């Protein structure tokens, strides 16, 4: 059964319908079995009565993209977190900006949502338009779009692993928070010395040090390599000039392909090295203290749109979105409590809702009025809180844990709080076994094997296994393996693109016209380096009448919902033990909480810092907005 909480059932042909006899099918009911956090009234009582319970706030959370603040209440006696509130502190407003515009503007405007991953927003916008207007790119257009966005990930993953999250595991930070752990690291031999060159874990952790560590500096260099390849196709980074509905407007020649290849092959060895470094880090921490398996743990409930379209699979229609998704090199899907419940794009789409109980927005549904789109074009039921039905109504107000405290919304799938991340793609792909056959990777039903060709290092097959423990370490490990997997998907696409060129097929785009009559729906389902990304578009007489973006951090930074079900950051922090070696709240650095948060690769709202009264623009003006709802 796909849905356990929404009253959606399926007939024998797989067609969805609303369960009969339910008067108000989308009336709020929380997800069955979902965790809840204590009410703030109870927390206030505990704070008053217990001196060892204290508020600990991180504002801003550093080493994340954009503006994230986090409020927690910590019980220092029990060494655990008893309240967690995630706050997106800035308003983005793309949904408001887009209304009334030519849909093509979305490609360039929504790209500015992110200073890291502008390309995926452009591509997702282009795909939403393609669906709305019925325009399928030619095979080479699909392949080079895959390639350009793979290079964006090859920038994004090293950036997070070794510039943002990596320092949390470095000698400099571990030495300050857990000196005995660093002492142990200096005596512990690393497992994969032959691939990364570090004899001990202490040596490896020294090179994770920010600014000076070799791994840190190497990651800076590799981000350049990826950027160079990206701009060969996209013109510039991060905001591409060549994404268009119907493909790409770049010129693909053998010279361009050759230039790309010289950069891509550098990731063969780097992919091996990074995956095995994160294997070593993870296993070292687990062995030193099994309590680390609880840092950042939460239910393994996650969602992903899949990514990298097969030229034989993508036709830009909603009707065939299910087939399109299942032919992707990384499979879409929803995993609830570790179980893959669907890989079907239509089912993913119909299960999505956004709530604003604790968000700085006005409610737009739930008063009994009929939603504008009660069904999709296939006849599948849609919630009044579905993105196509959503109306963005910002309402800034004071921060109040009982009422509103964030600019993020609370997206839910089948009313579950789901997380997004590169690892969700691996997980879906590993379990589903639907990805195209390849010489370089294989899904086994419980793992993904990636074969990385010989470079300076020998050819090697690495295997990402579906984790038995789900936590901060596994998020980082998954992201590291995703670097290797993405490298080989890019290589596969490069080879297919060369085949097209060899037969003289150089067409990379399909001509199109924006219809000036009628209403047309589109949705772009793609993914950022950080995971899930969708753009829902309503096109009315040639102009955008509604545009809704859900980013990975919209899911991850979600606030608690009206049932008390925490968002993923909140849930992960609530489950995090405090393993830092201090009993003094004044010395407390919160490293375990920060590891939990950073493991999601937070990417918060920034771009249009429209402050309601002062018109304030802050210096973070154009950094990543992947976390904001609006």
């Amino acid at each position: 059964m796909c849905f356990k909480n929404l009253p959606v059932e399926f007939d024998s042909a797989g067609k969805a319908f609303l369960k009969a006899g339910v008067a108000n099918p989308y009336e709020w009911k929380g997800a069955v079995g979902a965790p809840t956090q204590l009410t703030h009234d109870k927390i206030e009582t505990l704070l008053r009565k217990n001196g060892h319970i204290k508020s600990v706030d991180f504002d801003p959370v550093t080493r994340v993209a954009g503006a994230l603040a986090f409020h927690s209440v910590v019980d220092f006696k029990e060494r655990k977190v008893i309240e967690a509130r995630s706050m997106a502190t800035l308003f983005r407003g793309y949904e408001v900006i887009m209304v009334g515009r030519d849909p093509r503007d979305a490609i360039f405007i929504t790209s500015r949502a992110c200073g890291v991953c502008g390309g995926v927003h452009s591509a997702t916008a282009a795909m939403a338009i393609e669906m709305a207007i019925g325009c399928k790119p030619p095979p080479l257009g699909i392949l080079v779009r895959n390639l350009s966005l793979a290079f964006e990930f090859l920038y994004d993953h090293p950036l997070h692993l070794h510039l943002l999250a990596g320092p949390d595991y470095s000698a400099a930070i571990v030495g300050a928070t857990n000196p005995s752990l660093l002492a142990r690291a200096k005596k512990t031999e690393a497992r994969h010395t032959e691939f990364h060159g570090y004899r001990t874990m202490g040596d490896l952790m020294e090179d994770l040090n920010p600014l000076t560590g070799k791994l840190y500096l190497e990651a800076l260099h590799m981000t350049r390599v990826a950027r160079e390849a990206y701009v060969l196709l996209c013109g510039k980074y991060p905001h591409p000039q060549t994404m268009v509905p119907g493909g790409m407007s770049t010129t693909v020649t053998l010279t361009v392909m050759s230039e790309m290849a010289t950069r891509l092959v550098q990731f063969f060895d780097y992919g091996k090295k990074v995956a095995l470094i994160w294997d070593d880090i993870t296993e070292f921490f687990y062995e030193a203290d099994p309590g680390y398996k609880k840092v950042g743990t939460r239910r393994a409930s996650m969602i992903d749109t899949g990514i990298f379209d097969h030229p034989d699979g993508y036709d830009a229609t909603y009707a065939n979105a299910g087939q399109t998704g299942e032919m992707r090199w990384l499979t879409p899907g929803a995993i609830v409590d570790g179980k893959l419940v669907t890989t079907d794009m239509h089912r993913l789409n119909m299960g999505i809702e956004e709530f604003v109980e604790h968000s700085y927005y006005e409610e737009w549904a739930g008063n009994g009025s009929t939603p504008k789109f009660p069904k999709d074009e296939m006849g599948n039921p849609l919630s009044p809180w579905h993105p196509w039905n959503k109306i963005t109504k910002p309402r800034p107000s004071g921060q109040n844990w009982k009422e509103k405290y964030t600019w993020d919304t609370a997206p839910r799938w089948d009313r579950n709080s789901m997380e997004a991340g590169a690892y969700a793609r691996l997980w879906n792909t590993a379990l589903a076994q639907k990805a195209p056959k390849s010489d370089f990777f294989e899904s086994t039903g419980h793992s993904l094997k990636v074969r990385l060709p010989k470079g300076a290092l020998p050819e090697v097959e690495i295997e990402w296994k579906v984790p038995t423990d789900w936590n901060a370490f596994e998020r980082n490990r998954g992201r590291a393996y995703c670097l290797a997997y993405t490298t080989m998907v890019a290589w596969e696409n490069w080879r297919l693109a060369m085949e097209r060129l060899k037969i003289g097929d150089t067409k990379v785009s399909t001509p199109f016209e924006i219809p000036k009559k009628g209403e047309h729906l589109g949705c772009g389902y793609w993914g950022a380096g950080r995971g899930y990304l969708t753009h829902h578009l309503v096109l009315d007489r040639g102009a955008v009448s509604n545009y809704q973006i859900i980013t990975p951090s919209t899911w991850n930074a979600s606030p608690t919902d009206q049932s008390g079900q925490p968002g993923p950051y909140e849930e992960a922090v609530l489950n995090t033990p405090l393993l830092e070696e201090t009993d003094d709240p004044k010395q407390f650095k919160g490293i375990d909480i920060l590891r939990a948060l950073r493991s999601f690769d937070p990417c918060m709202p920034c771009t249009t810092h429209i402050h309601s009264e002062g018109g304030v623009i802050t210096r973070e003006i154009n950094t990543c907005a992947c976390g904001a709802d609006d």
Partner: protein
Amino acid sequence: MGVLVGGLGYRNLRDHSIGIAVSDTLMERGWPQGICVEDVSYNPVALVEHLKEEKFERAVIVAAVQRPGRVPGEVTAYRWDGKLPSDELIQAAVVDAVTGVIFLDNTLIVTRHFGGLPETTAVVEIEPEVHEFGESFSAAVAATFETVCELVTTLAVDPQALLALPRAPLGGVSRERA
């Protein structure tokens, strides 16, 4: 070896776009050999790579920056003393850099820390008045535009003029501090 004239900021952000507007304007003018006028409003790590390749002798960077104690339209020019903040703040600057932030201090800190920024770097700051989207400058900033273009031109072509600037930390010597 030569001189880099770099405009820095975001486009279409009214007063905050003056750095790029200056570089756009100066690009259209004739320049002696060795003077390179560019828009440097991109990832500072990529700018480090560019600077290391080009090995400029001097640089003149122009941008709008809001600082306490200045009045809108005020122009502050100084030779940056190159003093870097703590490692923690440098790391924060790198994080901002790699996640898309374009900001004068950030760009200067990152390019100095990783190398590439010339020892002799003049900074021309303009105090913005309005903080919103749009193409036009406020009256206060618009009134300074030609002056800034001429000042930047002088600093680019006349090494003595550049060396005559006060040596100062980021932000220059404010009237309050002076």
